[in-house]
């Protein structure tokens, strides 16, 4: 999934020499029958509505925003009763337009979970945990898979016309071989930097100058020279990329970053929702980053800098705990670990929203045993080898010559990995991936922070003088907040509130205390000295832990 990153910078590379990335694709449905392919925006909506119709007591569907492309940012809330004041997990998919799987995993999580709601254990879970499912955060971009011209796209429809880029209004790409997909285009040219892979001639790799290799091809995405400056189309500059538009390490002025952080309806919608929803203690993102196959590592300098860029050590331990759980579920199918990118959602959710944030691609192309390691480390080769070993058909469009208006005297061929094939498995594999991830999230939810008031002791010092001592325990595995959440203003802290009646007087102790983090399976003790008699009410908790309340009679 490093592909995503490269794709964003594709446009920059285009004008200079040639591209370094194979941008390929795939038709991923298995036989073209309904239900055997990833769902488009409308189908996703129908699946969600069908859930709400089937489980009206346990689910609700809302629209948080509408994108520039007229698509809805939908939220499916799953839980019984009052879903606002109890721990919640946000499950976020479809954050990258080229990651169809992420959206599907979010939707299938909802479907699987609700289908299991007749089981006692799931029903109890839904009484005590809320799931906020955001299936499609980049719907404009994702729509390109379902359009007549299929290519991997990350940007939304909020076209930023760059005055400095005269090509920014040009149409994206051109389907030279008219196969409905944008693949690659190679031009035989002694100035080119690319060669055919010695182990598989279908694959283009960059010649290794240091090994004395001589480039033989120029390589572009399929298209024609557009605009006056002689660039090929640079479509990724044209809109805003959801996963580059957040405030943590915001990549200002970079392609896809937008005019400023959180400038888009999509990004604002989820940011506003999460800021307002203090009950969300964990965010699970299906996207390009992965801190589940391997946990993040503690970096003291980064974690303690004035502007934190590394997770706090206590939070790293939670990441380790959750990563262990993930590894137990995924076993041999772990996707590749991958760092977050500047301006992405996954890191924002931790660093600027203060929630425990976990991300996985759900699936990456598995390594296939090969005779020798690939010296070019080609992702395309990895895909082809895996596809062959597993009888996955048609991930590749064979190179075929075309007449190209810009290169009338040169051999121009179009072909390559089909769009979407590198980042998404064939659809028949999705059910089992979704099922595994559903179970992982259910087990994660069981680790939620739960605050209870226990071990209440009353000590009578005199007729009307009482000391109340109570312990506040977090019975969950998660702390009541992340360490970053504790320093961020918008994450609701655990509050202990002791309410007296008018005849009582608090001699010592606090009527209201904003407590620090209570770690998982940990206890804090508080006491109050009260003059008077009657009932005293003690309430402790936060939106993300649930509230515990007790009345003590003096």
């Amino acid at each position, binding site marked *: 999934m490093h592909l995503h990153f490269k794709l964003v910078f594709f446009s920059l590379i285009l004008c200079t020499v040639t591209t370094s990335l194979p941008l390929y694709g795939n038709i991923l449905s298995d036989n073209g029958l309904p239900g055997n392919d990833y769902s488009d925006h409308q189908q996703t909506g129908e699946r969600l509505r069908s859930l709400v119709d089937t489980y009206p007591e346990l689910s609700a569907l809302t629209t948080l925003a509408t994108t520039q492309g007229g698509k809805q940012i939908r939220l499916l809330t799953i839980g019984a009763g009052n879903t606002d004041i109890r721990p919640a997990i946000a499950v976020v998919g479809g954050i990258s337009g080229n990651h169809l799987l992420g959206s599907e995993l979010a939707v299938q999580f909802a479907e699987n979970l609700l289908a299991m709601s007749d089981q006692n254990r799931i029903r109890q879970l839904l009484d005590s945990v809320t799931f906020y499912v955001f299936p499609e955060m980049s719907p404009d971009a994702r729509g390109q898979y379902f359009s007549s011209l299929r290519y991997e796209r990350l940007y939304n429809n909020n076209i930023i016309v760059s005055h400095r880029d005269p090509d920014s209004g040009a149409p994206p790409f051109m389907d030279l071989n008219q196969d409905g997909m944008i693949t690659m285009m190679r031009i035989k040219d002694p100035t080119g930097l690319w060669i055919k892979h010695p182990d598989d001639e279908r694959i283009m790799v960059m010649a290794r100058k240091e090994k004395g290799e001589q480039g033989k091809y120029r390589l572009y995405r399929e298209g024609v020279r557009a605009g*006056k400056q002689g660039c090929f189309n640079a479509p990724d500059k044209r809109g805003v990329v959801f996963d580059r538009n957040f405030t943590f390490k915001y990549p200002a002025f970079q392609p896809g970053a937008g005019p400023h952080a959180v400038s888009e309806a999509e990004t604002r919608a989820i940011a506003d929702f999460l800021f307002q929803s203090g009950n969300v203690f964990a965010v699970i993102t299906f996207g390009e980053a992965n801190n589940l196959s391997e946990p993040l590592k503690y970096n003291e300098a980064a974690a303690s800098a004035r502007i934190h860029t590394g997770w706090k050590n206590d939070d790293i331990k939670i990441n380790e705990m959750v990563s262990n759980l993930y590894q137990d579920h995924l076993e041999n199918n772990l996707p590749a670990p991958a760092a977050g990118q500047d301006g992405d959602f996954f890191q924002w959710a931790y660093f600027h929203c203060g929630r425990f944030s976990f991300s996985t691609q759900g699936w990456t192309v598995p390594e296939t045993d090969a005779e020798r390691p690939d010296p070019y480390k080609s992702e395309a080769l990895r895909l082809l080898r895996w596809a062959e070993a597993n009888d996955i058909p048609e991930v590749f469009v064979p190179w075929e010559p075309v007449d190209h208006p810009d290169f009338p005297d040169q051999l121009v061929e179009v072909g390559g990995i089909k769009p979407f094939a590198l980042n998404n498995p064939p659809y028949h594999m999705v059910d089992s991936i979704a099922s595994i991830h559903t179970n992982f999230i259910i087990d994660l939810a069981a680790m939620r922070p739960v605050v209870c008031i226990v071990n209440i002791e009353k000590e009578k010092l005199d007729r009307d003088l009482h000391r109340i001592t109570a312990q506040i325990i977090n019975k969950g595995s998660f702390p009541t907040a992340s360490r970053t959440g504790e320093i961020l203003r918008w994450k609701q802290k655990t509050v202990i509130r002791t309410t007296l009646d008018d005849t009582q007087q608090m001699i010592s102790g606090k*009527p209201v205390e904003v407590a620090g983090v209570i770690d998982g399976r940990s206890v804090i003790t508080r006491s109050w000295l009260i003059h008077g008699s009657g009932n005293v009410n003690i309430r402790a908790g936060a939106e993300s832990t649930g509230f515990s309340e007790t009345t003590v009679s003096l």
Partner: protein
Amino acid sequence: MNIYKTILSAISLLFFLLITPVGAQVSDGRPVENFFKASGSPVNPKVPVSWNRYYTNEGLLEIYEQLVAAYPNLVTLESIGKSYDDRDLWLLTVTNRDNKPHHQKPGFWIDGNIHANEIQTAEASVYTAWYLVENYGNNAFITDLLDEKVFYILPVMNPDGRDHYMSQPNTFNTPRSGTMPLDDDGDGIAGEDGFDDLNGDGHITQMRRRNPYGQWRTDPDDPRRMVPAPPGEFGEWELLGWEGIDRDGDGMLNEDPETGRYDHNRDWGWNWQPDYVQRGAYLYPFSLPETRAVRDFVMAHSNIAGSITHHNTGGMLLRGPGAREDARLYLREDVQVYDALGKLGEKIIPGYNYLVLYEDLYTVYGGQIDWFHMMRGIFTFTSEMFSRYYLYNEDPSGGWGWGFNEDFYSFDKYLLFEDAFVPWEDYTHPQFGEIQIGGFKKNYIRVNPGFLLEQELHRLMAFTLFHAHHTPHLEIVELSSSDLGGGLREVIAVIANTRLIPTHAGIDLKKEIERPNLITLDGGEVLAGMIVENRDLNVVKEQTHNPAVLEVNNIPGMGTVTVKWIVKGGRRLSVTVDSAKGGVVSKEL
């Protein structure tokens, strides 16, 4: 209501003119013969305004409407958005509307009152608008300014805050924000423990209590003032903080006011950081309706080349960056422009210092001036109005002491006759018992006393006008043609920018913010076009695509650009320079 008001002020102006005897003008209800002109000020303003008092939002709107009615060809009034409490964000566009469209002129942005309690900044903005229109046609410099430039003036960016500051009990430091309540103390309830105006005088002043073990004693020179007890001695007073009651029982006073603690000037799009790094930051850049409205306006007006955002206090002209790590992006050529203007500012506003925000004051992430400079390429200053210097026109000695500095007491005593002080009076406090309440009023310390207001408004405006004057001014200073034979002509144009500010700041060029200047040759068939880098040695850079419209990245301040075309045919040739920040100029050969 606003239409009604506009009509009413137009009618009253008309009535005013009609009842005046023929041949006799009046000013402010008095015959004009009764006045003698003071240099530099309008003797007979059409819109008389007293500049020794402050105006509520309604009072300001009345002035705007009078300006529009009196000078319809120079002033337009529009609302660019709504505040959190649904108040209009009124913007004045000031320019000569009769010569060319305002977006084809270099623009200058002025705003005030982004911080609620910094109220004189609105008057600074309105004074500028008023002075410009009242002097247009009478003063060559001002007339040229309004012919060549356009001023976009938002006197009050935070009208909710201005209203709260004036109409509600406050200290001179509050509120800084707007009126959105926030849970500042984190206990789950918003705005439940703010100030309490215990003595009901509309000001939040200090609470003190007699205490034989206190740290403060009465100043023998001024019994209103307290001074620290000498080392090793007790005083007679303890200070209890601003007027208030611990309403939520958390042991803290005034820690969760009804106006949440957030800062519009930490809500901008460059190097935004969250609240734990940058106190006052809200959710993300432009997460407040007021800053969002300004963003939309500024992004839609790419002609804005210079700006000033007015604040108090301390007598400063600040430039960015707000954070040390951005210093490398304040490029040398841009800093030179700031330095030239800033030093001029120090001269014409005695008591002001030209400073670099992060280096000389404090770090600001997500501040307005950085967004203006870094992401819009606009040369921008922050003013910090009023300073202790103005009490006695000398550099003050000693610390601020926030209201306890002796200069403020003596100034109040000898020049304001104790109008700025609430005398200490006994009060029975539910938590502290017998206390006294008193101290400086909210309209002192940070806000100019009335008689010191007009001079500072004028000096600050003068600096602003010179800044605006130095936005790009483009002239086609040479347009010549020579015959190459065979029906071909070589056409050369030299375009000068006769002001300090370039059409594109260094940061603009580095980050590719604004489109290039377009220099177009009309008439004839343009076969080739090029930018001349060295005319004497014929070093040129050819533009092969669309050579009739040359794209010139920058026309530097106090500099020229030379371009050349090879043209076939065409009798009447004309050249047009179209610059986003430099305006549009044309010349015929």
